[in-house]
């Protein structure tokens, strides 16, 4: 599995984690290129469908990352996201999508270092778990 390079889809909120990713870049921090960032205005707008679709299309992991509790630009979007992630973590593992493939984190706008570290750790962990079976199977 040495040559396995996971694909991670990351839904990051405009106000915190996306800004943190931007900061990681302008600070010239390096992190693996396995992650595909999708900027959303708030984690509260990440429909469970987006996550399900990502897994069915073969994403090896999905990261949803937004503002710390209490810091949401829209007051409470991240709390709603947390309930949806709780829901998906109770549904997806039944069908063989390892629970560790779906992560929710809070990374604030000034946490560029944290963002880079999160991606590094996530890539390492997913490499351990191996590829998502749905990547090549005829599952749509």
């Amino acid at each position, binding site marked *: 599995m040495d040559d396995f390079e996971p694909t991670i889809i990351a839904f990051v909120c405009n106000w915190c984690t996306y800004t943190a990713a931007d900061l990681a870049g302008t600070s010239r921090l390096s992190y693996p290129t396995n992650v595909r960032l999708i900027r959303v205005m708030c984690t509260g707008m990440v429909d469970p469908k987006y996550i*399900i679709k990502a897994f*069915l299309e073969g994403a090896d992991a999905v990261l949803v990352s937004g503002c710390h509790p209490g810091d949401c630009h829209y007051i409470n979007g991240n709390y709603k996201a947390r309930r*949806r992630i*709780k829901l998906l973590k109770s*549904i997806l593992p039944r069908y063989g999508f390892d629970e560790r493939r779906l992560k929710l*984190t809070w990374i604030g706008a000034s946490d560029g270092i944290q963002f880079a570290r999160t991606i590094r750790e996530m890539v390492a962990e997913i490499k351990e778990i191996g590829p998502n079976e749905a990547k090549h*199977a*005829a*599952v749509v």
Partner: protein
Amino acid sequence: MAKTSLCDEAEQNLQTSLASFFKFVLAMEDIHALLAPMRLPANERVMHTLVTDPELLDPIDPFAPSFPMNAARLVSRLTKRPGGEMVAVVLRPCEIRALIELVKLKQGDMENIIIVGIDCPGAFKNTDYVEFAGENPETAAERFLAGALSGETKFDGGVEISAACRACTHPVPQGADLSIGIFGLDSDRQFLVSADTEKGKALFDRLGLSGCDVPDSRREAIDSLLSVRREFQKEMMDDIQKKTNTPEKLATYLSGCINCYNCRVACPVCYCRECVFVTDVFDHDPFQYLRWARRKGMIKMPTDTVFYHITRMAHISTACVGCGQCSNACPNDIGLSELFIASASTSQSAFDYEAGRSLEEDPPLTVFREDEFDDVVEVNH
């Protein structure tokens, strides 16, 4: 404390005494209509029927093993906007539970209805019911109860009570104003009327029913039914788990799906006016299909079937009452209720929620708290 009364007319059978009881209910001045399963004049199919004339209630047949749709949807139609008139609605336990979910989702209202719940021994899927009823639909309920109340699940012609019903652990109505009980009684002619709510007790009194104690045999009959049902439910869930525990196995399980979306239409708690799966979001360009096929080597057509079913689980598994109408509606006999009942049990326990249990508990995805579910958040170092 609930009020109970035993209806036991020596001269009558269950069918005729139920009809007289409901005639009596509908004759009440403040009850303007009754929604109940009736054998229709044309072909004796049992469908929910809205009746205003008590004299037409002879073919009322709530215990016929026919369950063509979850009537919570019908009650939603009757109550989603104010109508002002009082309707008594005869519902199975899963229909009441679905209605409770719909009311919480603002798709119906309890104010102008009186819920008459019935003990539910289960039902057949639609095609099986037609076969079982055969030439004598008027005796179907009687023939069915004779076997079902003594624990039979298989009947003449090899028809079997549907899997969802055999796995159902709510055979006794909860949340009803009045309940009609048949478990643990002499079902040829007796039934028990109990009133559990203020509205129900008021009606109970006005009906002039005489009180009685619940016979001990009833509790025993319900307990033994529940233990059989629980055992079957566990087997069913273990079996579905084995059959669908990888994405590929799940796709195989759903491979007969033709995207007809009948399961979504039949589902009482899938209430969106327009389902996202019929919008332009899924009106893919031709090149998209080819791109998917190229990436994976092949794709099953129509596409988006696994996507659709998992999304539906995300949407309704916290509200699923396990009525089994999804399986009933599937033209290709996919065991959807097994899949959804199993999924619902994990999602509902994740939120310490039970669909249909109470009007007071908010549906999990409609609320949030600041301090909860830290277990799903990765801790930063």
